[in-house]
C-alpha cells in the first residue's frame, strides 16, 4: 500500500485530515498520515524529506522559494474580544499599542476602565508571525499577559475574560460564535472580519493555506494535491469555516 506523510500547521491539519479521509475512501490501499507541529515544521520536514507534503498556513517567505506551494484555501486572522466588550473596531496602530503595552486600559480606546489582557501565541506559530508582519513588530516587543499554544485555548481564554484581546483564525472564530461562544470578531481599520471580506480580498489580515512540496509533485502526491484543490472538498473547507479558492 502507498503512504503519504503530511506535517505542519495546526490550523491546516484538521482540514487536511478530513480531506485525507475522503481521499482514502476513494483510493483504497492509500494511507495518509497527518501530523501537526506548525508551519515551520512543515517546511522543515519537507526539506529534510521526513514528510512528503508540508502544511503551511501562510505565504512562503523569500528564503523558502525553493519549495512548491499550492493554495488549498484562504484564512484570515481576526482580533477577538469578549462579547460583553463595547469595542467593535480597532485600528492597526491601536492594536500595536495594546500589544506593546503602551495602551494598558480599555478606556483609552473607548471601553470600560479595565486593564487589557493581551493574549499572545507561543513562538513559532504562523498566526503569530502573520500578526507580527502586519503590525511590523518583533515578538520581543510584545508584552503579553497570557501565552497560548493553540486556537481553542485562545477562544477559551477570551471567552472567559471580559478584558482580554486575542487573535485567531477567522474560520475557527466564526465557528465558535455560531456555537454561542461569547466572543466578538473585531473589525480591522473598519473592515469587518468575515469570510466574505477575505473572499473579496478587502480584509488586510488574511493568509493562504498552502500545501508545499520539495520538488515538482509526482504520482500520489500530485493526485492528492489536485484532490485538495478540487471542488470535491469545498464542503469540508466550508465546514471548517475556511474559504475555498476556486472563486477566481
Amino acid at each position, binding site marked *: 500500500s502507498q503512504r503519504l506523510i503530511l506535517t505542519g500547521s495546526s490550523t491546516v491539519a484538521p482540514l487536511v485530515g478530513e480531506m485525507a479521509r475522503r481521499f482514502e475512501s476513494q483510493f483504497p490501499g492509500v494511507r495518509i498520515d497527518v501530523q501537526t507541529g506548525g508551519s515551520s515544521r512543515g517546511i522543515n520536514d519537507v526539506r529534510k524529506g521526513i514528510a512528503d507534503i508540508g502544511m503551511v498556513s501562510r505565504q512562503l517567505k523569500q528564503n523558502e522559494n525553493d519549495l512548491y506551494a499550492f493554495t488549498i484555501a484562504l484564512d484570515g486572522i481576526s482580533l477577538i474580544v469578549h462579547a460583553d466588550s463595547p469595542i467593535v473596531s480597532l485600528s492597526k496602530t491601536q492594536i500595536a499599542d495594546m500589544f506593546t503595552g503602551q495602551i494598558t486600559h480599555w478606556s483609552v480606546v473607548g471601553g470600560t476602565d479595565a*486593564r487589557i489582557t493581551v493574549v499572545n501565541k507561543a513562538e513559532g506559530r504562523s498566526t503569530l508571525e502573520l500578526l507580527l508582519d502586519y503590525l511590523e513588530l518583533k515578538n520581543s516587543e510584545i508584552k503579553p*499577559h497570557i501565552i497560548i499554544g493553540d486556537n481553542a485555548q485562545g477562544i477559551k481564554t477570551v471567552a472567559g*475574560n471580559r478584558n482580554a484581546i486575542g487573535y485567531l483564525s477567522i474560520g475557527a472564530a466564526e465557528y465558535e460564535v455560531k456555537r454561542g461562544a461569547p466572543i466578538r470578531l473585531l473589525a480591522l481599520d473598519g473592515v469587518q472580519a468575515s469570510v466574505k471580506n477575505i473572499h473579496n480580498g478587502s480584509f488586510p489580515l488574511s493568509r493562504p493555506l498552502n500545501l508545499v512540496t520539495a520538488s515538482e509533485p509526482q504520482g500520489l502526491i500530485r493526485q492528492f494535491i489536485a484532490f485538495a484543490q478540487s471542488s470535491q472538498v469545498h464542503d469540508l473547507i466550508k465546514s471548517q469555516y475556511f474559504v475555498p479558492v476556486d472563486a477566481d
Partner: protein
Amino acid sequence: MQTDRLLVGFLRVGAMVSALVMLLILLFLLLESWPVLSQLSLLRFVVDTSWHPLEGAYNLMPMLSGTLLASLGALLLAIPLGIASALFIVFFAPSYVASLYRRFIELFAGIPSVVFGFWGLTTLVPLIGEWQPPGASLLAGVTVLTLMVLPMVALTAYTALAAVPEELFRNAAALGLSRWGMVRGVALPAARTGIIAGIILAAARALGETMAVLMVAGNVVQYPESVFDPIRTLAANIALEMAYAMGDHRAALFVSGLLLMALVMVLSGMAGLVEKQSHV
C-alpha cells in the same frame, strides 16, 4: 549451581540495560543541546534580555524562577494538607471513614495531569479571572500542582506513619499520652524520614509537571510580581515550543531539559542525604 550461574548471568545483562537507560538519556540530552552549549557561553542563559530564541535571546532564569515558585507554592499548600490527611487516616478517622478516605486519595493519585489541567482550564481559570484577571496565573498553576502532589504527600506520609511500629504507640498510650501528644511526640518524629522522602518525591513531581501547568499558568516568560501574574515553567516551555522548534531553538529547549534534570538530581541527592541521616 549451573542453573544458578546461568540465571545470574542473564539477570545481570537485564540490570545492566536498565542502568544504561539513564546514561543514554543524559547522553542524548547533551548531544542534542550541544549545538547551543558549544556556541554560546552558559552565561547567556542567565543574562540575556529574555527568552526569544528566534531573536537569539536565551534567558532561562524567568522560567527557572517560575518553575521554582510554582513548585514551592504547591508544596507549601500540599504539605500541611497532605500530612493532615495522613494523620486523619491513621489517627483521627473511624476506621471505615479512614479506609474510604484513603481509597479516595489513592484514586486521585492516579488521575492524569491532563485531567487536572483540563479542569483548571475550564473551571479554575475563569473563576480566578473573575476576581483578578487574566486568571491564568501563578495562582492557578500552584492550585493545580497542589491538587496533583497532595495525594502523593498524603500517601507517602500515610505509609511512613503506618510503618511506625505498633509498639511505640502502645508505649505512648501506656504512658497516658494524649492523642496529639502521641502524634507530635512519637508518630511524627518516628515517621520523619519517610515523610520527608515523600515531600522530596512530590517536589520532583511538581518541578517536572508539564501539561497541567501548561494549561493554566498563562505561560508568559517573566518574573511574576504577584500570584495573579502568569508564569511559564521550564517543562511547559518545552511542551509549548518543542513542536515548532528547529535548529538552535530546539537545542535551547534541550538545555532547559538538562536544567530540569539537574534540579531533579539535586533533589535526589537531598533525598539520599535524608536517608543517610536516618541510619544514625
